[in-house]
């Protein structure tokens, strides 16, 4: 059988690529032929992800990007386009968890979470969409959460607000940039292994998540990565403004 990779020749930026879901997405996109710009603020694990991709014969580089900085976004996007000549895919994966903060009703924590999870996605999407508009094509995949649909008792409510913002912001951008061939979609993971920013108090609550999930387990990062791959690829060329829920059936109930 012919070996045709699903992102052959594409250039992709993945944020939060140093750990967890972002690392899995960067590796999967690279294994399907994309040249990956792996962005994060943690350079050591980020360089490790890049080394793994290179060792597998893929193409990738690590670039520092604080997603809350408009200036850094401009530099990442300009740098990518000048080095590779195009930008086809952006995965806005960087984010912090609802339990990354001490006080679940602190205003400062609200601002931190909204800043990274919502404003970060806004900045990345707007900077990239303009380049893609000039190109006449592109696919932006924004990582939201099932918490963008439902409430929950743990952590800071700003997490839900930030993920809800990602969900509806992406639809607005899908309408705005659709005429230029730019697609914007969201992925909504369910209960996943704890994030590096997580400070989750008990393992008991994780057991409850499993119990409440119809498929009776938490997710694996590769399962989210495959959803991202589908939306990033031309297989989804008629898919925009949509929500891909990857949650073991949690919100179907």
């Amino acid at each position, binding site marked *: *059988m*012919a*070996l*045709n*990779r*699903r992102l*052959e020749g594409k250039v992709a930026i993945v944020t939060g690529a140093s750990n967890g879901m972002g690392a899995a997405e960067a590796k999967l996109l690279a*294994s*399907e*032929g994309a040249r990956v710009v792996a962005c994060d603020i943690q350079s050591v694990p980020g360089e490790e992800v890049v080394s793994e991709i290179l060792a597998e014969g893929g193409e990738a580089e690590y670039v520092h990007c604080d997603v809350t900085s408009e200036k850094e976004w401009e530099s990442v996007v300009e740098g990518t386009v000048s080095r590779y000549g195009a930008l086809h895919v952006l995965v806005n994966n960087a984010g912090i968890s609802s339990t990354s903060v001490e006080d679940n009703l602190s205003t400062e924590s609200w601002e931190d979470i909204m800043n990274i999870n919502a404003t970060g996605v806004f900045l990345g999407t707007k900077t990239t969409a303009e380049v893609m508009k000039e190109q006449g094509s592109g696919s932006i995949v924004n990582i939201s959460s099932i918490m963008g649909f439902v409430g929950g008792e743990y952590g800071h409510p700003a997490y839900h607000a930030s993920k809800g913002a990602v969900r509806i912001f992406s*639809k607005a951008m*899908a*309408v*705005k940039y*659709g*005429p230029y*061939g730019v*697609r914007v979609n969201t992925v909504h993971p*369910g209960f996943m292994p704890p994030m590096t920013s997580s400070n989750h108090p008990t393992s008991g609550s994780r057991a409850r998540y499993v119990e409440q999930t*119809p*498929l*009776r*387990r938490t*997710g*694996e990062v590769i*399962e989210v990565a*495959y*959803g991202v*791959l*589908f939306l990033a*690829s*031309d*297989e*989804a*060329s*008629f*898919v*925009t*403004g*949509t*929500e*891909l*829920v*990857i*949650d*073991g*059936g949690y*919100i*179907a*109930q």
Partner: protein
Amino acid sequence: MGDGMSSNGIGRLTGKVALVTGAGSRSEIIGNGQAAALLFAQQGCKVVLVDFEEENLSRTLRKISDQGGEASFYVGDVSNALDCQKMVELAVNTYGHLNILHNNVGVGGSGTVLEVEPEQWDHIMAVNVKSMMLTSKYAIPEIALSGGGTVINISSISAIRPRGLTPYTVSKGAVIALTKAMAVDHAAEKVRVNCILPGPIFSSMTSVNMSDEVRELRRRSSPMGIEGSPMDIANAALYLASDESRWVTGISLVVDGGVSLMSPQR
């Protein structure tokens, strides 16, 4: 875009067996079920094609054998319980197991509740909803016995954005509810159930009597300014059929070029 093979060159559905209803095409224009059957077969899946007319199926069968795929067919009515039982038996007897049920059969239905004849309403519900209950009734136990798998139902954005096609809208809304209910009911048996909500797709079904003006209006209804093809729906079905989506169940995947994002402008 290539043939979509995974990077190791193995098909994404290698070793699996699928039952695809509505897999025929009434003209040379491709249909949703036909596109899915072709794509599944191309990805290494053995496919049982179902349609109510043998002639419709022969077109699909020929295309699959031309590309070196493996398929069988069953001519029958998916709103008939005995036919549904027999098509599942055919799949299991021919290929030894069943992993995927893809429900594509559907008919249109326009008008308000004041206009629709009760018999017409019953017919639309039977073809669009009861059929999916019946095929699932017989397929799910076999999918569970095969170690788990997936059911993929075709709904429509008409379910979430009504526009004068009330019987159709209601039937497609029922497909979403049926999908979620079956997803919750059968998760423990490792049977995943999801649905796709297509927008303006130019297919063997929708192309019938469609004027160029209407076709252009449909294109303009999406922010992307394009119509979809049955291959767009088939690619979504392939994702849902494959193990790549093994943690995905109970979802409604909209494939509409963004039409449902801007309902009043349709």
